[in-house]
């Protein structure tokens, strides 16, 4: 049996570009679990993949756009949300998911994140948070915990990390959730909920990086990190995201925000109808 024939037996195979497998992710990496949950969510919802677009940036999770079988864009570093904004606004019939990493979305791409959330552009943003830049060999990032060791914080990290769910909520996201890759069912349900909801939705997924971040910080093997997630994670739906900071002792997970707010597209449509009603009188433009 060839490798592709083997892959074809996977129940979610039709959502994947099988010719691109095996993927590039390290053993024990959580990104594959996120991809699996995402494909399962697509399958459960019966999403029309001809009208679905996945956009990602640069980094380990950034490679995901090339693995999902639909129109997909692997952008420059940090720009997936800005590019996705263009796709969505130019063709509102498309459903957009941005899947990328913490460095891509919140360091180099942080400005685009807060502004897309503020505008409430209709897209689902999934962030694989592994606390460091894995692809380039493990440098400090915007979510690296204080005192952690990375190649660019050889004496320990002295930068305070972002609390991503707090940031997303403050910027205006209508749906904000956090899970770890241990919570596969809850994560899948959360992705389904986000994909069905209108507006700017954000899901943070805590994901192990045993080969790079884990090794440098003596977190053990992937299985040890997963066990740790089980010990220290606590499901608290509706919890104040401002208080949901990740610490060594506790990871609060759950759905923090689920509100309704007119999207950019809806407000634009309203304006459009108003102007159309006014008719051609408006077209006699004064210079």
């Amino acid at each position, binding site marked *: 049996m060839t490798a592709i024939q083997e892959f074809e037996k996977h129940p979610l195979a039709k959502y994947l570009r099988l010719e691109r497998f095996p993927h590039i992710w390290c053993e024990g990496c959580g990104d594959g679990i996120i991809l699996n949950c995402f494909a399962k969510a697509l399958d459960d919802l019966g999403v029309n993949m001809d009208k679905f677009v996945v956009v990602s940036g640069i980094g380990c999770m950034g490679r995901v756009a090339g693995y999902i079988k639909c*129109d997909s864009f692997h952008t420059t570093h940090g720009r997936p949300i800005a590019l996705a904004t263009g796709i969505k606004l130019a063709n509102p019939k498309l459903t957009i998911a941005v899947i990328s990493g913490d460095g891509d979305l919140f360091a180099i791409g942080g400005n685009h994140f807060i502004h897309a959330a503020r505008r409430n552009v209709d897209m689902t943003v999934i962030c694989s948070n592994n606390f460091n830049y894995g692809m380039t060999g493990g440098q400090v990032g915007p979510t690296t915990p204080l005192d952690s060791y990375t190649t660019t914080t050889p004496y320990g990290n002295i930068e305070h990390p972002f609390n991503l769910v707090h940031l997303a909520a403050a910027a205006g996201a209508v749906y904000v959730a956090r899970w770890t890759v241990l919570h596969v069912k809850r994560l899948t349900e959360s992705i389904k909920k986000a994909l069905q909801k209108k507006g700017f939705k954000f899901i943070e997924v805590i994901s192990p990086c045993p080969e790079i971040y884990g090794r440098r910080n003596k977190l053990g093997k992937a299985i040890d990190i997963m066990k740790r997630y089980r010990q220290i994670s606590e499901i608290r739906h509706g919890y104040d995201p401002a208080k949901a900071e990740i610490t060594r002792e506790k990871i609060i997970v759950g759905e923090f925000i689920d509100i309704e707010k007119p999207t950019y597209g809806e407000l634009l449509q309203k304006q459009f109808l108003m102007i159309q009603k006014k008719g051609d009188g408006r077209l006699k433009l004064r210079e």
Partner: protein
Amino acid sequence: MTMHREVLTGKHLMQGDIACAEGAIAAGCKFFAGYPITPATEIAERMARRMIEVDGMFVQMEDELASMAAIIGASWAGAKAMTATSGPGFSLMQENIGLAVMTETPCVVVNIMRGAPSTGQPTEGAQQDVMQSKWGSHGDYEIIALAPASAQEMFDLTIECFNFAETYRAPTFLLADGFTGHLWERVVIPPPEEIKTVERKKPVVPADKYLPFKPDEDLVPPMACFGEGYSVHVTGLTHDELGYPKTTDPKIQHELVNRLCEKIRKNSDKIIRTYEFMLEDADIAVIAYGIPSRSSLSAVKMAREAGIKAGLLRLITVWPFPEKKVEELSSHVEAIVVPEMNCGQVVREVERVAKETPVHFLSKIGGEPHSPSEIFEVIRRAAKA
């Protein structure tokens, strides 16, 4: 009378920037993303008002990095897309201009050039970004850049930019100096049926046979857009004809990058536009573009009155550089005069091509265009030499 929504046929007193916006709309632009910046803001303001009237989309992004990314996204979603900026914003856009080159995304970038480096002179016109237009993003690539010299050309050449972008699947620049952008002049907008527009090539094969980055004979691949059922993967990484990353295969990098250059180079005869005035018997040729070409025209007339056989070659296409034209010209004139509103950019190209023919450069920066008499003085000196 019902007016055509996209094409405001008639005679107008119009600002260059506004004419650019109207040219874009007449060309079929349905998506504009931008960020305010002097002296290009009027384009965004006009688009904010007009896009919604033509079922198009205007969005003011958080910066120029995002504006450039958004038009690439919009283009892949099927829209003709444009952004407009000036030097500082153009610098930020270089990152995703490279992405547009690599992913063969049709889009138009307008740069209304102002005094630089850095924040420089926001309200003063300049021509200091010509080399940046060619070499601004990292890597090797060819670019198309047109330089208007009137409000009318801000309209006409913006349409040309869209047509080139769609034909060659490449980001295309309208490279105007701030004076041309802010010039109020008569602009004649023709009836819609007289405006030639071009649409990108679409695939003619079913999705399972389609190779998104396999070129036709003209070196340009047909483009399936998002939502059309072709499951296209687009990446800024070096990719094969399927669009998949192949970053360590020297052959694929070699073929891809060379094709991106060649699809412009091989079609340069179709892209290059110039305007000639009294060059047939000229001893001295002035080569200029943008606003200095207008003072140059007056200077050439002054020279003729003074008995000097001068002529003008106005570059409408700056990139690809009209090498053949300049080479041929340099073979039968005694000297070439190049006035530019920078410290010497296009003149380097002229010198490279003109070889033995003496080239006199006239730099002017600071916020005033060259006067005709300043250019005439250099013509006279060149004639005596």
